[in-house]
């Protein structure tokens, strides 16, 4: 290979690039510069990044290359440039949550996942755009900018990890780390035609993840294929004593599950996923996936999951309540935005929080505060916790019968800007298919499975049982090995 010049390096996967790096056909600095060039090319169109750290990235690439040359770094992630969602703390690098409230916040410490990635020789390119405080499904709620869908620049990339998905799809990062609270990682992955993995709750440390809903949030990889997802997961999963909710299990080598075989796998498709809001194109793509799985020897069956009706209210009540508490700390006193005009402490708080938060965040805090308030607690919060147990129970019952649950990731493909952001209740419905995995803490993955009539990507979702990543990865890998959807790349039309 001629130094990889015939192939656009930024279009290759982690495993491909790792191989080239190990064979010394390319080096980390060259690779990093290539991706940085791609960022320069695509950013004016797509606006994936809030902050790009070119100099630091190149410096780091030089260091990493030296370490690789000295035989000190063996990880498949070594020398590979990547980016993370801007709600993951990066020491010395601004971490804004796409909010005015944290516009100038520079964390004095790294999130646990960042430390792990650095230990693996990863090269950070910058921080990716998102919906403010991870609240949204389109990245339209960012204080700074709107990220465009690489497949059609009039459409949203999904959210809240819109920047993560768009960057990977467009080659502006070889992989990224996003976060998933109700589908925030899987839905944009589906809408942008890439692979997004939400691990079992507790598998990836939340230390350094700026919290939205503590019992729902998980960090996961957004990557070009299932193999890359497994490689990244190997690096970031693991017990962390700094996070009391971190699972103390024995973590596997996730790449051992990359096996092309689904014979006798029992797959259940909830009928609720295939009707209601789900568009015809999406249903068609998923139906074709079902056919493929049957051909490959799996047993697919539709089943009823009536508890789906209560998923959205349960999600909203609990996450909004947790958010209202987690976001209380933003008060202009210790860090972040501080109002300029105030005559006393009360005004300092109120103006800071009114000025610093966007309207979606404020709405969720108001609702979250309401459902926890005296007189409403039993009716809403307590009820939602009970509903959560019922939903978990129902999903576990499904896993008595099936190895996997499968269905579309999102009921529709990417919508146009401005079409849903005015109606939050409508916006939330985009995530109903992804929310169950967060409610029950289950692992779930979205892989590309087709395109609609407008050539917009469609995502296929697998949900596994708790710590059932191996089955998930095997099914997703098998699907990928027998299709080509993940190999498609969007064409970025440059701004004239």
């Amino acid at each position: 290979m001629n130094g990889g010049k015939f192939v656009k390096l930024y279009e290759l996967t982690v495993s491909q690039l790792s191989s080239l790096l190990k064979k010394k056909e390319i080096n980390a600095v060259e690779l990093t510069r290539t991706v940085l060039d791609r960022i320069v090319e695509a950013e004016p169109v797509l606006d994936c990044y809030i902050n790009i750290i070119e100099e630091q990235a190149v410096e780091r690439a030089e260091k990493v290359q030296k370490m690789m040359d000295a035989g000190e770094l063996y990880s498949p992630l070594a020398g590979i440039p990547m980016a993370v969602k801007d709600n993951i703390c990066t020491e010395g690098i601004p971490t804004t949550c796409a909010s005015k409230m944290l516009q100038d916040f520079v964390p004095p410490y790294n999130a646990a996942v960042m430390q792990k990635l650095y230990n693996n020789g990863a090269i950070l390119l910058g921080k990716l755009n998102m919906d403010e405080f991870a609240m949204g499904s389109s990245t339209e709620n960012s204080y700074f900018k709107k990220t465009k869908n690489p497949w059609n620049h009039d459409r949203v990339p999904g959210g809240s990890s819109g920047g993560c998905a768009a960057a990977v799809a467009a080659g502006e990062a070889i992989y990224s780390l996003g976060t998933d609270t109700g589908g925030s990682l899987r839905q944009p992955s589906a809408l942008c035609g890439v692979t997004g993995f939400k691990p079992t709750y507790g598998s990836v440390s939340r230390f350094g993840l700026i919290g939205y809903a503590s019992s729902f949030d998980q960090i996961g990889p957004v990557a070009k294929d299932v193999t890359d997802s497994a490689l990244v997961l190997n690096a970031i999963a693991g017990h962390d004593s700094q996070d009391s909710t971190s699972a103390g299990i024995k973590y596997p080598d996730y790449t051992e599950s990359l096996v092309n075989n689904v014979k006798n796998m029992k797959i259940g498709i909830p009928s609720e996923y295939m009707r209601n809001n789900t568009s015809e194109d999406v249903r068609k793509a998923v139906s074709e996936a079902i056919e493929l799985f049957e051909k490959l020897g799996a047993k697919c069956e539709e089943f009823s999951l009536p508890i789906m009706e209560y998923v959205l209210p349960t999600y909203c009540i609990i996450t909004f309540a947790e958010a209202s508490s987690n976001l209380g700390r933003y008060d202009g006193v210790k860090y972040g935005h501080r109002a300029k005009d105030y005559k006393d402490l009360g005004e300092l708080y109120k103006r800071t929080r009114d000025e610093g938060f966007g309207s979606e965040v404020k709405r969720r805090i108001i609702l979250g505060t309401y459902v926890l308030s005296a007189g409403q607690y039993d009716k809403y919060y307590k009820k939602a916790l009970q509903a959560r147990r019922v939903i978990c129970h129902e999903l576990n019952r499904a896993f008595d019968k099936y190895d996997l649950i499968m269905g579309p990731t999102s009921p529709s493909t990417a919508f146009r800007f401005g079409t849903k952001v005015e109606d939050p209740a409508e916006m939330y419905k985009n995530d109903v298919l992804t929310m169950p995995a967060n409610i029950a803490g289950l692992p779930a993955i979205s892989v590309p499975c087709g395109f609609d009539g407008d050539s917009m990507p469609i995502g296929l979702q697998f949900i596994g049982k708790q710590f059932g990543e191996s089955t998930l990865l095997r099914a997703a890998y098998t699907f990928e090995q027998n299709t080509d959807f993940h190999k498609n790349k969007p064409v970025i039309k440059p701004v004239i």
Partner: protein
Amino acid sequence: MNYEVVIGLEVHAELSTNSKIFCSCTTEFGGDPNTHTCPGCSGMPGSLPVLNRRVVEYAIKAGLATNCIISNYTKMDRKNYFYPDLPGAYQISQYDIPICKNGYIEIEVEGKKKRIRVTRIHMEEDAGKLMHDEFGAGSLIDYNRAGMPLVEIVTEPDIRSAEEAKAFLDNLKSILQFIDVSDCKMEEGSLRCDVNISVRPEGEEKLGVRTEMKNLNSFKAVISAIEYESKRHIDEIESGGVIYRETRRWDDDKGFSYSMRSKEQAEDYRYFPDPDLPPIIIDQEWIEKIRSTLPELPEARKQRYMKEYDLPAYDAGILTSSKVISNFFEKALRKTDNVKAVSNWIMGDLMRILKDRKLEVENIPFPAEYLADMISLIDKGTISGTMAKKVFEKMFDSGKAPEVIVKEEGLEVVTDEAAIAKIVDKVLDNNPGSVADYKAGKKKALGFLVGQVMKESKGKAEPQLVNRLLSEKLNE
């Protein structure tokens, strides 16, 4: 009309762990502002709490020592409110399932024994400290104290007077110190007390409207506040006024309480279980393991002293009022059998000297064995009782052993008859008037002359010998 005062107490005790409750910052007292903090205890985004095991153990210990039931299942909850000393806008505390409940502490006031029921004990984190800046234009916040581990001990409204409140606090402090979970230094803020108080006509069962006074930081303040506030309630009611259910601030300097208008509306804390912290299961095995580490508690020790050493209740009470004193007492008794003397020296001179020199019992500059040694010297007659008082003071000055001090300064009792006889002769020569008085029948003059001999001998002459020689010579 006679009124009954009904009091309940909420006591916050800082636990003497090495690190804070949810992070590894030190719990050391003092320190420049904001030098004992981290992202966790200063409320930074992305930080997470991890519970200090020793805090749980100390809370269980405190519960066992106060006869509580230890919950087999307990959890942490968030108490949400906005105040600058609370970095995260919520305090991690315990709401509906405290770690301990339904205990009691026995008190004795004016000879009457009574049980004050402990409703609950729960774990929580402390908030930071607010200070006013020097111009008085703003307030400054120090988070060193944020995240310090606390237990909150809540009583039923069983207390009926300021004396009972003091007795309760004394016993609670003693217990917590004995089991080594808190040093209970009110002046350092490691013990704080809130008072809930109401009055009702004697015989009435229904409780009156209560007011609350927070953060009283000395036992004296608790007593003064209770006395003032109960009087205020009674005066108000008698004059036809109304008591408002409110929090009042106690001004210890001025000696009155005043309404805190800003906290009129009852804050809705929106308690909910903290999703960042898994629940705590305490099995019987763990409880028994902790129970086996409990030392003899103050009340039990007091009873034992009364029995074993035949000490009166009052004395036994003082000797068991603090673990340090009690240990000092017992250590001294390993070297001498003279219980009465040890007890008297501790209760008398030792306590007095500590007070005069503003020392804590922990800072006695010599080991208990030295007290025993000194008592032995008195018993053997090597020094007089009067001289011993001087020696004792010098032990505090230098920390040296009593024999060393006696030897270095030549303080032994002089029993050399010839030497004393010389001094007696000298004194008699110098005080002809007194001699004459004595011979004239004024026996009191003998005392004066004895005093003069003692003075001349710098207190070292053996008193009985002086008496005998003087009498002999006077009666010649």
